[in-house]
């Protein structure tokens, strides 16, 4: 638990307050808030677990996330806290605080005991609130903030004659404060470069930590920030390397791919239970986990090539997933739900993460597959190519009228639909690649026939012909837009918004080039980004006029 470590370095806490006090009179000019991202549910949970341990239960409903430019991380820069959301944060905060100060937890959580149980103790309250506050706020509390928190603890303790009730109240306030719920990026204008703002040391620490671990800075990173290490290349590299070598990197990589692959849509995913009785919420959870395990195994454990995610035969299965894929999965008797490593046969029609349920089931309708939806998702999620919205006044009658004997398969129906000129423009960039996944039904199960007719999964991706899903995976593997898209998404994820024109230029020339020239190694890409000056230098908010507007991101992955 961080709390123990923080308490063990009480000197550090004192240094934070001093450093913050110094920062309040920063000679670099007035501070500006250049970014404000609402923390995600996962980040909230992680921070609370880091500070108080996993025994603290978090109950309640989080505000729904908003996806923009393909990422919740970007949408997080546009959302606020609604009235009903505040109610929920208040409930969760009170519940967490009550647990932290209860008799069971307080010996481990609170580094001191009050002089009297029934009265305020400012010294003890300050010690606790100052230490936990540093992680909750991702920076040391200012002297005034700490004084205010101590006062709340004191007032409530006096009113209720209960030291711990006072302490819990102050902690509740911190957990529902804007300082906690929003990642606030603060910078100072550089008089020599008015177009940019240099992030302060605490904001740098947060950018680094949320990128690599999807968590608030740990005590070591906060210590490095307090001592100005993140303002030097060597100090920054030292911290980045420490974090890249940590097992916690896996959580960061999982969080990024969960966002990029749109797994939040699994929350509302349902399949018709009459038609597909095997599909369940548990299968949906396992489907996401299968892909995330595949990603972590290939990219982190085996330091593999990102593009191989689309062709790999290596994966992981549970018996539940095996039932969907019709693959027998054997587990130990005492671990019936265990994950087992599995390799698709070399001649299988299934390989790569796009043939897994996390893609084909997610991008389908409740009762049947959808080549159009899958093709659109493939363009937008994997290649970062925006498919235009459909026009009005379209006759859809032929698309999937399965009762028409002339159009038994989706290919036949879509071909008829594409004969309409107004539809052809968009469908020709979606359907031919979506049809390549038609051997997978809406749950992800393999099928060779649809309505008694054989499925033809042949198609073409940007001039590359394929005959089945595995060849489609190879075509994506070889498409330069795929790695460029990964870089684009990672950069947007890291900065919490669509890159400006200037940032896009830098991204292409530095990040994408390094990624494509360096074996498509995501760990190296993360290091390149995390240690670059540009990552911590933000375009002045009033200089971002060149930003492409949301929805105008056609071919944003582009070519390097």
């Amino acid at each position, binding site marked *: 638990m961080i709390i123990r470590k923080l308490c063990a370095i009480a000197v550090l806490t004192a240094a934070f307050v001093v450093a913050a006090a110094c920062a309040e009179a920063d000679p670099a000019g007035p501070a500006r*808030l250049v970014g*404000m991202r609402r923390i995600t549910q996962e980040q909230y949970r992680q921070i609370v677990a880091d500070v108080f341990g996993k025994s603290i239960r978090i109950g309640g409903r989080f*505000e729904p996330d*908003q996806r923009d430019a393909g990422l919740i991380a970007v949408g997080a820069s*546009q*959302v*606020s*806290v*609604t*009235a*009903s*959301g*505040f*109610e929920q944060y*208040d409930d969760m905060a009170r519940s967490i605080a009550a647990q932290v100060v209860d008799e069971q937890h307080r010996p481990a959580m609170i580094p001191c005991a009050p002089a009297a149980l029934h009265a305020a103790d400012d010294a003890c309250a300050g010690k606790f609130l100052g230490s936990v506050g540093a992680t909750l706020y991702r920076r040391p509390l200012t002297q005034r*903030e700490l004084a*205010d*928190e101590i*006062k*709340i603890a004191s*007032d*409530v303790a006096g*009113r*209720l004659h209960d030291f711990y*009730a006072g302490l819990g*109240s*102050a902690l509740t*306030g911190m957990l529902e*404060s*804007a*300082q906690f719920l*929003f990642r606030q990026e603060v910078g100072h204008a550089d008089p020599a470069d008015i177009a940019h703002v240099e992030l302060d040391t605490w904001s740098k620490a947060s950018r680094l930590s949320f990128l690599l671990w999807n968590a608030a800075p740990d005590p070591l990173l906060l210590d490095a920030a307090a001592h100005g290490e993140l303002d030097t290349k060597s100090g920054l590299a030292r911290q980045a390397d420490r974090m890249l070598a940590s097992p916690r990197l896996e959580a960061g990589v999982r969080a990024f791919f969960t966002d990029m692959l749109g797994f939040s849509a699994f929350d*509302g995913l*349902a399949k*018709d*239970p*009459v*038609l597909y009785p095997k599909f369940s919420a548990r299968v949906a959870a396992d489907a996401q986990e299968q892909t995330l395990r595949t990603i972590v195994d290939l990219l982190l454990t085996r330091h593999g090539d990102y593009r191989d995610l689309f062709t790999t035969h290596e994966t992981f299965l549970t018996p539940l997933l095996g039932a969907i894929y019709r693959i027998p999965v054997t587990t130990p008797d005492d671990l019936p739900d265990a994950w087992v490593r599995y390799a698709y046969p070399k001649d299988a029609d299934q390989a790569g993460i796009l043939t897994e349920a996390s893609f084909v089931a997610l991008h389908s*309708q*409740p*009762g*049947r597959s959808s080549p159009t939806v899958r093709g659109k998702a493939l363009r937008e999620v994997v290649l970062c190519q925006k498919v235009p*919205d*459909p*026009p*009005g*006044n*379209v006759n*859809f*009658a*032929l*698309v*999937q*009228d*399965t009762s028409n004997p002339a159009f038994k398969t989706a290919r036949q129906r879509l071909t008829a639909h594409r004969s309409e000129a107004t539809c052809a423009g968009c469908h020709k960039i979606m359907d031919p690649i979506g049809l390549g996944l038609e051997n997978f039904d809406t749950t992800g199960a393999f099928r060779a026939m649809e309505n008694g007719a054989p499925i033809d999964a042949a198609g073409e991706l940007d001039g590359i012909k394929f005959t089945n899903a595995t060849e489609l995976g190879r075509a994506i593997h070889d498409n330069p837009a795929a790695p460029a898209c990964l870089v684009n998404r990672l950069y947007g994820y890291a900065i919490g918004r669509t890159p400006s024109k200037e940032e896009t230029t830098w991204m292409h020339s530095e990040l994408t080039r390094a990624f494509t020239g360096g074996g498509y190694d995501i760990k190296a890409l993360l290091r390149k980004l995390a240690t670059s000056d540009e990552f911590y230098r933000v375009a002045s*908010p*009033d200089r971002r006029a060149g930003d492409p*507007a949301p*929805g*105008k991101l056609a071919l944003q992955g582009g070519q390097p």
Partner: protein
Amino acid sequence: MNLGERLGRRRVLRGMLGGTAVAVGLPFLDCMLNANGTALADGAPLPTIFATWFFGCGLNPGRWEPKSAGKLADLGPELEPLRPYMSKINVMSGFKVHLDGKPALPHITGRIAVQTGVVPAAGQKTALPSVDTIIADQIGTKTRFRSLEVSCIGSRLSESVRAGNIMNPSEVSPAALYTRIFGPDFRDPNAADFVPDPKVMARQSVLSGVKDQLADIQGMVGAADKVRLDEYLTSLRQMEQQLSLELQRPEPLKACSVPTQPAGEMPPNAEVSTMLNNHRLFVRLLASALACGQTRVANIALTEGLSTLRKSGSAVIHHTHTHEEPVDPKLGYQPNVTWFIQNIMTAMGDMIATFDGFREGDRSLLDRMLVWVTSETGYAKMHALDNIPTLTVGGANGRLRTGQHIQTAGDPITRVGLTVQQAMGVPVNDWGADSMGTSRTITEIMA
């Protein structure tokens, strides 16, 4: 003679405008209410309530509109479940969204335009608030909840959007809604005893501290983030309002009967029988919440704009049917689509019956409600943005005349949104932008 008798609404309008057929946005004065209304203990009338009821994918043109304009004498076959309530509704046909050359994003543009009065330009999002939030800011600031949102298909999305494109999320579980309203923080207005809880005062101290700290960053933010911080502050203040109410003895409300935990909730999803079941539970809970004075604004989303309703055992969802199902040449409409519409209308009838059946003295809860029913499209098969079905339900405490069919030939649907706002006391004289801009209240339904 009391003030209401001396100073009627029409008298005010005539006095101001010489009786011309123009309406202006006057804050509605409670003293002008129908004297027969059931009143609070101090004689003040029970407050007027606003609700929205949204469903996606429209209705079949020609099958829902009454034949003639004026007094509502008949209903199209698709509105048949509403027949028992013809005297309490207004049906409005022929209203449309004018695009002014801007793109029509299917199921999105119509929704935004109906709710905010503005069609977003290409690649842009609207930053304007939806009608319900404008009204909630007008009438919902003194209640425990500024508004309550529910969704009947499991999606937390809602049509309720505050300035800055900040969406009020929906509750998807009736049980969760019950706990939120009638859980430990609920104060029964008719309870014999009332003892303020000192812990509530402690919570007020906490919120006061949180608010004070917000001042540190408010001066550092740009315009867009300021809107977001302001929204956070508004939410915090709403919580302060809740706590403040917990420390006051509530006004007794005879019709308030605290319900029991809803039974029979089904795991929320878009299967039609599940939707109908959970909608029924939601509406009953909301009726109790409204009667108990917990809020004055409720937003009910039956589906999303792109309706994902599905029939058990069928591979095709409602939205897909609207585009792909051929029109039956004998029937003249799409049978499967119409099956979904019938179920949506059944739900609407259930909603009206519930609110109308909730008695408050010799009146019903519905009598002091204005429920604005909308969809986001007309004929979904073509993504049409004309003839979008919209209705008002309830008399809004005498502010609306009901039992009317308002028929237009393409008037902007913002006329309905404007009228609804004015009826709820929002001081607005014109609303919408470009060809959607209007100052033409639907005077035929204004009392």
